[in-house]
């Protein structure tokens, strides 16, 4: 088991945002969390990354409990997140953004090699290498955010709404790259509003509703569930 989340409870002040969420990821999988706005998908990712603290429950990564580890240490353990809204460093160039992604690493030659790999996946970023992050288009920013997250050589990549605000063509492109990243050995936890897209690349899925997992199973099972079809896939 690469990641195991067990009975996680997270509060925003008095609001009980995650109410005993449990799920797990095996090495090499793509798993998706789907659900409506406010269901707790981003909260889950933010808690795994250490930006939020859980009140109770465990997050175990490769057997180690990381629920009290500082956010900057979690990256070092091998969990990298592409946050919702990309959170590109707008005043830094594309190259500097990628360098920040490799902040936890020290060997310049290896960092350079990783950057070349990112450029191979996202050739557009190479063309824009000296441009400021804030001047990129939405799709390019998404590519930069993913490339930046990959620069730390994560074992587990958390993707929060990668398709947000992107055209259907760009969304297809991003999901193609997600599969490519996964096939190179990175486990992926994918949070998406675009459930159909997410279920098409994932092996397994969890459905979150107001802070609890209400359904889980293989992507195909979840896709064929009548309630899911009704609520998230827009088909009766």
């Amino acid at each position, binding site marked *: 088991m690469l990641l195991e989340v067990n009975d996680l409870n997270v509060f925003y002040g008095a609001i009980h945002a995650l109410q005993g969420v449990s799920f797990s990821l095996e090495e090499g999988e793509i798993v998706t969390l789907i659900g409506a706005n406010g269901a707790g998908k981003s909260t889950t990712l933010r808690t795994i*990354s*250490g*930006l939020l603290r859980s009140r109770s429950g465990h997050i175990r990564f490769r057997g180690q409990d990381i629920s009290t580890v*500082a*956010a*900057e*240490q979690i*990256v*070092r353990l091998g969990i*990298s*997140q592409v*946050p919702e*809204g990309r*959170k*590109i*460093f*707008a*005043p*830094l160039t594309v190259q*500097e953004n990628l*360098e*920040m*992604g490799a*902040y*936890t690493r020290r060997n310049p030659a290896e960092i350079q090699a990783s950057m070349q790999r990112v450029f191979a996946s996202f050739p557009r970023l190479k063309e824009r290498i000296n441009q400021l992050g804030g001047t990129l288009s939405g799709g390019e920013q998404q590519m930069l955010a993913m490339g*930046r*997250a990959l620069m*730390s050589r994560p074992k587990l990549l958390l993707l929060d709404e990668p398709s947000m605000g992107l055209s259907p063509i760009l969304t297809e492109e991003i999901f193609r790259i997600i599969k490519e990243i996964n096939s190179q050995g990175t486990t992926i936890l994918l949070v998406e509003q675009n459930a159909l897209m997410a279920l098409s690349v994932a092996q397994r899925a969890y459905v979150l509703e107001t802070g609890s997992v209400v359904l889980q199973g293989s992507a195909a099972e979840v896709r064929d569930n009548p309630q899911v079809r009704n609520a998230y896939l827009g088909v009766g």
Partner: protein
Amino acid sequence: MQKANSSQPFMPATRKSGARLAWIGRGFLLALALLVLIVLIRSFFDNPQLFAQIAISGLQLGFVYALIALGYTMVYGIVKLINFAHGDVFMAGAFVSFFAVSHFQLHRWPAAVFPGLPPILVTIIGSLTVILLSMVVCALMAVTIERVAYKPLRNAPRIAALITAIGVSFFLEYFGALNFVFSPRFIPYQRPFGVVTWYIYDGIHLVTEGHAPPQGAITFSNIAIIIMVVSILMQLSLQFLVRRTRIGKAMRATAFDKQAAQLMGINVDRIISVTFAIGAAFAGLGGVLYAIAYPSINTLLGVLPGLKAFVAAVLGGIGSIPGAFIGALIMGQAESLTAGYISTPMRDAIAFTILIIVLLVRPTGIFGEPEKEKV
């Protein structure tokens, strides 16, 4: 609902009269600027030597302010706090060097350790040691202040941290003024090296004792030159640090988005500490140079230079490092010209006049960009 509807028809009218007021204000400021320009040009042609003399002292002030203003702008950039205790860290720099020189003869250590060393090397190495010590003490002091006073308020409303900063400032000023600390009196400052003055009059000549420079000569001292050179070098090295090094890039990333920086594995607390330390080291350096230039110190020494450097940072666009530098040079000239051509007591008033004008005309300062709403 009702209220919103009833206030709507008045909106355009208010906007119109507001615009008219703005135009009147702008016209007034334009007239003022023109007047200042005319007076300056006339003064220059009336007596160019005097003008140059005033400009030199303005440069000397401005470059000291630049060292302080950088700390204001860097700290603001990263934690959005106007660190009003910064001027007092500057004061502490002056006091550390005072004790190092007057009580411990630290500036003489190379002569004590290596007796054969030429005097010039003794002076240079000794003075550098004193300056470095002040910078290190100030950096430690600022990091401590940040840890103790500001960090617990990191997620509190910004006004809480601001008030705390003012509190820390008063604490440093009046704790230092206690009799068993530094005492409230002005203390004569012993320089780690002597003043050498030159005058320009048919070439450059050394001013020697008993021989006053002739009428119309422009004088300048080694201290003015040192202040300018050091300040420029520090500015350049800071630019290099922020633009090129890993830690500098992490500082810029953290200033832009702390959570995203954490997701990169950046230890945000450490970056904030480093920022405070660098700003304080610059202020400490400024404090030593200021005390060398104006050798009489007390614990309120940092108040006015601190406030003026703050105005400089606002004038340049708070958060912008080149802005703080340019703003400080303008402040130095404004102060010096005011003291020279209007009246000496007005030199402090001009700083705040400039602050008011900047806030009215261009609150974001020269290099500032309007703050974008972050989603």
